[in-house]
């Protein structure tokens, strides 16, 4: 089966000579549809670089990035930008909603930039807002929405249309732990609709919402969690 996202021997080097920094070294990672993967690592370990390369915002120095089995290296710059708009959704730390646009306009903007007709974009936007339970707030502006509603709109924007890959870099930012958890819950729900998700976080209680946690150190993927047994195993353990 083709993975939604695959990194093959990806390395990224910044600078040269004595100032050379190897941000990523021979990273292999595959993420399937419906799977949420958390990437954890200390500051400077390369986790954000991994995300920007996975999202084709940067090119690797060597190695391949495949989205839905297609090597991004084989694309022209403009085709890559097109693919990025169509297939990849981003969730930013502060959600980055445009204040002059309604919730629905924020969600449909990437589709309209991609040439989707207004009517079709509107219908896809409403469907995405509906999936996140905020369709009734579609005509509101960001400053008329609660913090939780803004999170939902930002995630709706990331999954609108035919997005296959959802990328989030520390999406819970400065939120308290309960609101941070709400974001993770939404990302998990979003990926369960056959989207592959990658979330970078340094907080273990947020990473634990992922199906798999990948650990990165000094640009290397050093370890990952195995498949999570069902919660019943926990109850059996506590009964001892």
């Amino acid at each position, binding site marked *: 089966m083709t993975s939604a996202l695959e990194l093959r021997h990806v390395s990224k080097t910044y600078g040269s000579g004595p100032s050379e920094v190897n941000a990523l070294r021979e990273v292999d990672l595959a993420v399937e549809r419906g799977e949420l993967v958390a990437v954890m690592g*200390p500051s400077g370990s390369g986790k954000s670089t991994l995300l920007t390369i996975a999202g084709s915002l940067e090119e690797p120095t060597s190695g391949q990035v495949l989205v839905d089995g297609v090597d991004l290296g084989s694309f022209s710059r403009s085709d890559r930008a097109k693919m990025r708009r169509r297939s990849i959704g981003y969730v930013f730390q502060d959600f980055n909603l445009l204040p002059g646009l309604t919730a629905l306009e924020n969600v449909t903007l990437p589709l309209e930039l991609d040439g989707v007709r207004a009517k079709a974009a509107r219908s896809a936007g409403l469907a995405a807002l509906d999936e996140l339970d905020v369709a009734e707030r579609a005509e509101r502006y960001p400053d008329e929405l609660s913090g939780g509603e803004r999170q939902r709109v930002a995630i709706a924007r990331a999954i609108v249309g035919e997005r296959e890959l959802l990328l989030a870099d520390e999406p819970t930012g400065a939120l308290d732990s309960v609101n941070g958890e709400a974001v993770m819950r939404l990302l998990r729900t979003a990926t369960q609709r056959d989207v592959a998700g990658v979330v970078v976080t340094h907080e*273990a209680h947020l990473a634990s919402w992922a199906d798999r946690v990948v*650990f990165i*150190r000094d640009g290397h993927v050093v370890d990952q969690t195995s498949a999570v047994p069902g919660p019943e*195993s*926990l109850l059996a353990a506590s009964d001892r």
Partner: protein
Amino acid sequence: MSVPHALLALLSEGPKYGLRLQNEFEARTGEVWPLNVGQVYTTLQRLERDELVEADDGEGERSRKRYRITAAGALELDQWLRTPPELVPPPRDELVIKVLVALRVPGTDVHEILQMHRRHVIEVMQRYTQVKAAAGEGDVALALVADAELFRLEAIVRWLDAADVRLKQLPAAAPVTTADLAPVPTPPTEVLR
């Protein structure tokens, strides 16, 4: 977890049978802390002996007895709620000892040991999170129980992260030897008390 106080709390809502107390205890702790019915009746007997609960004039089987909290029981419950729990760490933290020992065993990669424990702790956290995810946002009791475990486990991950950084900062040319390390410390229990 104080089972006697949890039972007193459930009885503060009104008189109940033992079996119902068991069901409610498990439901309210998100079924993370199972309690067998034998434990419930043994605890009720002790509470009855200490005059913190009283049973309806019990004839026949214990399962037919209904228990109610007494005034002394209500006072005991109130005092327990306000008493800070024991926050002193265990006398020997096994994980800390393992890491300190790993530093002394030649040929052992301490970072790998730290990572192994980090992975294990996060896998346990994933299981607690699954319990929470399956229950939905409305189940506040379960969320509170799961959060308590999750944040306790997260503290371990943070300690492992800090250990990783501290050990990385050690000069590479000077490998850690037994002489460099202080003996395993005993927590200052007396000071905390």
